[in-house]
């Protein structure tokens, strides 16, 4: 069983009166791809910025690779690579010069530096553009180079903050393959995104975050299984749904049933079969169904189930 390389307890970060991160606990295992999933403004970038030693938290304990964050930040920095959401490259310099500079900043020099830059350029598929200024690159190429700059010093942990924002599908796929390759080489990766499909494809475990809090943390399968086999929302023309609830709960394939915001919310072990039973019940009671929504067991559904809103709202 892998040991944890990052331990976070009671993390708090405030901006004035606004609490951006509200008492977050998490543990990231060595060699895993750990996802932070949440909408814009949830706090993903703030968490990753703190872990990358870019921001100082207001409270909480953080340990990275055994080093205490506050006291031993100097020892932490050589071990981590950071790929920010915004491109962080010198546009008038070439790809080679950019990577050489960042390598030197991390203490690489001589033939070792040259070898690393060559390897990293090959890794991201930019060897043939090494001498070209970055400003001549496409968006996808810049993103790849942005990742390369975070890898040149061979970090133990890589923080990727929404690395695929605004790029074409081909480049996106390229990045996914790189990330999977890095994981295969044993790198620990913390990956923030608001795209479900990225998390589903890449991440071993996911923390769903909203408004500075972690709502759920588990493997993607584990999270989805929380929904059972689906969730049904029924809108009924009744002032109160309370009288109906006992009968609904007694139906087969119904796990739980509650009234939520004027609708009947039903977690099922089989959404289709449960729906058939519900329709029979409503017919028997002479109750019309005004609206029906069925959530398949996906992370999107999990998010909606946890927060009451869609990830892209």
């Amino acid at each position, binding site marked *: 069983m892998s040991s944890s390389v990052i331990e976070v307890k009671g993390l708090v970060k405030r901006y004035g009166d606004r609490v951006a991160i509200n008492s977050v606990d998490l543990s990231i295992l060595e060699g895993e791809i750990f996802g932070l999933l949440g909408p814009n403004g949830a706090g993903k970038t703030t968490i990753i910025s703190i872990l990358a030693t*870019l921001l100082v938290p207001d409270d909480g304990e953080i340990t990275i690779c055994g080093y205490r964050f506050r006291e031993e930040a100097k020892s932490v920095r*050589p071990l981590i690579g*950071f790929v*920010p959401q915004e491109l*962080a*490259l010198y546009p008038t310099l070439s790809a080679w010069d950019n990577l050489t500079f*960042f390598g030197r*900043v991390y*203490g690489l020099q001589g033939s070792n530096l040259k070898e690393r830059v060559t390897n990293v350029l090959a890794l991201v598929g930019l060897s043939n553009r090494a001498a070209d200024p970055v400003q001549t690159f496409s968006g996808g190429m810049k993103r790849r180079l942005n990742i390369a*700059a975070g890898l040149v010093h061979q970090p133990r942990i890589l923080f990727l903050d929404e690395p695929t924002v605004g790029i074409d599908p081909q480049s996106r796929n390229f990045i996914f393959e790189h990330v999977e390759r890095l994981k295969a080489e044993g790198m620990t990766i913390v990956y923030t995104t608001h795209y479900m499909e990225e998390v589903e494809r890449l991440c071993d475990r996911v923390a769903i975050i909203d408004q500075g809090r972690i709502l759920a943390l588990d493997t993607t399968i584990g999270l989805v299984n929380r929904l059972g086999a689906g969730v049904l929302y029924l809108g009924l023309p009744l002032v109160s749904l309370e009288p109906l609830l006992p009968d609904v709960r007694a139906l087969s394939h119904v796990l739980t049933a509650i009234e939520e915001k004027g609708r009947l919310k039903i977690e099922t072990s089989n959404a289709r079969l449960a729906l058939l039973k519900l329709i029979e019940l409503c017919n028997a009671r002479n109750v019309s169904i005004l609206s029906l929504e069925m959530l398949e067991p996906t992370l999107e559904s999990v998010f909606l189930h946890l927060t009451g809103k869609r990830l892209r709202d």
Partner: protein
Amino acid sequence: MLKKIIALTWKDLKIFFKDRGGVVLIFVQPFMFILIISYALSGVFSAGDHPIQILVVNQDTGTQAATLLDQLKDMKAFSVETSWEGHVLTLQKVERLIIEGKRTFALIFPPNFTEALEQDLGIREHLTTKVLLIVDPNTTNQIVEPVLVTIQGLLERAAYRAMMPKGVEDLFTHLGDPTSTTKSGSLRPRLEETRSRGLMEKRTPAVTMERIAPTGMHVKKLPDIYQQNVPGYTIYGIFWIVNLLAVSVLREKREGTFRRLLVAPMSRVVMLIGKWMPYYLINIVQIVIMIGVSSLLFKMSLGHSPGGLLIVSLAAAATATGLGVLVAALARTEAQIGGLTVLLLLTLSVLGGCFIPRFIMPEWLRAVGLATPHAWALDAYQDLLVRGYNFWEVLPKVGVLLAFAVIFFGIGVWRFRFE
């Protein structure tokens, strides 16, 4: 089409006015410049309010020098000082005052001034004497020449008044003819006129004026226009590095590379030093080029202390780039950087004497000028290039420049926003 132009104009005006710091600077900066230039030049355009101060040592045993001084005192453009802090001025004292930069001009009347003026030119080999005008060699000729011409004119008038009546009397005595009153009445003025022209054009006049530098300065020859002006414009030029450095920091923050560097294993001070260093080197090269080209193209003398030039240049560059770090710390936008840079650079350059000699400014403005690194840098360069000082003699001013550099850099690091 007009509507689109209006839409574009309105959009940029809205963006512009959102940057309050930039707005303030863009409107304050020219006003400040007007204010300071006006104050600085107030002595030139209202000479009566800020006359040129001339120290005078009157060693004359007669009365001619005193008469000349009375005429000089009557001129509103000059303020004659014959004592300092209650003590009568001496030659050593006036030289010290000029070396210390407290005054620029001193007039020395020799003991035999009256004797030379009133001597009988026709009887014996005549006595010659010199009136000395001691001038800080850094003073531009545009300022010195009018003073020279004025005093020369007064000397010639004094010579004429002293010599003419006696000369004409001698002439009539030699003629031995009690010429009729009528003839002498018309002859006398014509003779006086002729004689006076002869006096002016004599190859070895009885009284001459010589411009010299104070004894404490090692000036072998008077400085040329380049030695006087190149230091001022060099200092003005090198401080433009402030804008380059500050914009570079801002750009690095905007491009996101700043964040990447903050995550790297190096301290923030190291980061700032790494940001400061390239501009420091650029500044040094700038100084070398400006002074080097001036030396080659205009045959400008570089004094006799290359070590002194080097250390002053290193200190001046440190000050300029230190100020750049400070501006980078304070300004948030390119508009603010631009406005603040122009405001600072023009103000400091004017106050420091880069454009207008400080000695013609009002006393209070001269004192304010000492709060600028420009004044100290300019003085140090002039000490080396114009006044002939050596390495050790400029070290105190180098020390002041380095103090400015430390203060600018220190405040810049303290106020720098890394997040």
